[in-house]
């Protein structure tokens, strides 16, 4: 099974919302679609799904054009939308039936997911009585109730508290284990680093970076050094050419020009009898990569 997107382009009048976007997904897992607000992520998903007609290019699942009729995909839209006045179970059954399920099968699946996401007690309540987090769980269930192989999740974790966030993250991991192909659209870089092997970063509709996350990061090399130490070593770092990148409560992050610079700094500290609790040379975070690449394209 594979998802192939080739030269996908969508224009609204003069504005090109998605500009010749291409990527593929050959194995189950999570593919990250990143970008700032207004980068074109949602339009990309809508165009891939055939909700909007592409001006150029194509999106195929197993060699066939993706549309509502040929593929029962799952889609969690960025904007949360459920029937507020309707009972939770009733609307989940309705969404399941719209996806081609029989009433009983839809009910069984809905109850299963509700049990899994700990919202069973709300099944006969109108959705308006649920908290925002629980409403989000209901919407996620509506997206996957029909057990689709291809799932699009648009900002699935935004606005969730840590407990509910973890519950939904665990569910996404389970979906991956079940062999599903998940396209995760987000502007939360940490989420992508946690899940995605492959990613694509969009800025103003154009692809500014794409590929394997590990490879992308390693291509940038070791550029950061995180140090936790019980002494003021900033002066020493400055003398060795390091630049303070970010000072956090427990640690300081420096920018380095290669491993040698970090080693020299470590030797200076040890010679001075300063022993750091943490000394980590690492690649730049995805956040930094994104900011840098987005800046280059401005």
């Amino acid at each position, binding site marked *: 099974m594979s998802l192939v997107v080739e030269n996908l382009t969508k224009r609204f009048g003069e504005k090109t919302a998605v500009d010749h976007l291409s990527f593929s997904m050959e194995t189950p897992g999570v593919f990250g679609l990143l970008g700032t607000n207004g980068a074109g992520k949602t339009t990309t998903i*809508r165009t891939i*799904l055939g*909700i*909007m*007609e592409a001006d150029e290019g194509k999106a195929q699942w197993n060699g066939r054009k993706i549309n*509502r*009729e040929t593929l029962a*995909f799952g*889609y969690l*839209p960025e*904007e*949360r*939308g*459920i*029937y*507020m*006045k*309707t009972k939770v179970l009733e609307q989940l059954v*309705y*969404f399941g*039936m*719209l*996806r*081609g399920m029989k009433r009983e099968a839809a009910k069984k699946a809905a109850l299963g997911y509700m049990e899994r996401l700990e919202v069973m007690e709300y099944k006969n309540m109108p959705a308006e009585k649920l908290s925002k987090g629980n409403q989000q769980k209901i*919407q996620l269930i*509506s*997206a996957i109730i029909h057990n689709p192989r291809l799932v699009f999740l648009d900002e699935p974790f935004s606005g969730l508290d840590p407990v509910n966030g973890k519950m939904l993250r665990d569910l996404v991991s389970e979906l991956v284990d079940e062999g599903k192909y998940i396209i995760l659209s987000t502007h939360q870089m940490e989420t992508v680093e946690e899940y995605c092997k492959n990613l694509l970063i969009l800025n103003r509709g154009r692809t500014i970076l794409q590929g394997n996350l590990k490879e992308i990061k390693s291509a940038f090399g070791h550029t950061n050094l995180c140090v936790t130490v019980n002494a003021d070593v900033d002066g020493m770092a400055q003398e060795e050419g390091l630049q303070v990148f970010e000072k956090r409560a427990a640690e300081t992050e420096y920018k380095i020009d290669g491993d040698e610079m970090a080693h020299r700094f470590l030797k200076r500290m040890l010679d001075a009898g300063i022993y750091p609790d943490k000394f980590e040379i690492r690649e730049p975070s995805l956040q930094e990569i994104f900011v840098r690449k987005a800046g280059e394209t401005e």
Partner: protein
Amino acid sequence: MRQITTVFAYTLKEAARKKAFIVSTLIIMIMVLALCLAPRIISAVKGSGEEEQTGTENSAEQAAVSDDAAICYLVDQTGIFEKNLDTLKSVYPDRNFKTAAKEEEEGIRSDIRENENNSLISIEEKDGLPYIRVVNANFMKGISSQKISDICNKIWQKNILEESGVDGETIARSTISLPYTEEAAGDMDITGYILGLAVVFIMFFAVYYYGYGVAMSVASEKTSRVMETLVVSAKPSRILIGKCLAMGVLGLLQMVGIIVFALICYTAFVPSNFNIGGVPIDFSSITPFTLLILLVYFVLGYSLYAVMNSVCGAAVSKVEDLNSAMMPVMFISLGSFYLGYFTAIAGGGSSGLTKFAMYLPFSSPFSVPFTLLTGGMKAGDLAVSMGLLLIFILVIAAVSIRVYSASVLHYGNKLKMKELLKMR
């Protein structure tokens, strides 16, 4: 098809259990019950009034009209009419008639302004004929100038004939009011007219109420963003058709329920000899074919306006904007309603404007049922009207589905029709 039935069943269930639907159904049923009870209530009130009147008549033998009854002053400068005061009194037996002099007229006018039920009949000679002026406090109060004029004419004729030496029996025969009835030469009967009126109003109610329901349903799904979940599951055209069908069936069910209830109430409460203006109500002219055509026009008329309203619902991003977005469709439906209604009444199915109203798809759902029920419909006109309406609905539905599909996921400024048609 399955998706259409799923949307249909869900929309029907949700709309049927809305408070607005339940309350409106109950209000209409109460109104129907009140209408059916009205003849009995009126006759009961009349009965007690007649009893009271009989009592008054009985006491009149002893004390004529009571002192606090409304006063009708008569200033007669000809001297003819005050001599026939009893004849004048016969048209208003419950009033106290008092003669007065011309000099008192100003004072009488002041009295009428203070006592609104009092009136003045002032008669003077003008060009050799009596000239009658009837003065009331306002046009809503007092005595009828037509009635006074009629009775004065009789008194005048009687006086002339008496002066000419005609005998009393001939005078009585010549001044008698001749009995008359009014009949229509065509097929139009009072039952058809009333039913026609009822159907036109029901049609307008359905177009407005259920059309608004469709627009509101679409707009709320769009603004609550449920639409985004729906359109990835089903084609917008299927959602639209399912919704329109559901609201149409709900409307039909409500109408059928109300009609059945009305028939039960009519049978139970309306007296068998009930008539309107002396003409009995007779449903025998309503054939199954007529009912079928009414049903067809209800469905077609509703469908036409429902698909247009759904576009209005899809064109807005906020429910608050819905009323202004629906304004063009409202104007079309209101204008078509008046065109259909007035041309049907005035034209009787034959005038050019009536034909235009019957053929014009926007107005034919209002015009044809009325013309059909009042007997002015020709088979050829019916066929042309229905054919045009069907074709027009298909065209409008195709355009509406395209516009709806393009606009359901558009948020932001309200879209113009030109922009909507351009979107893909």
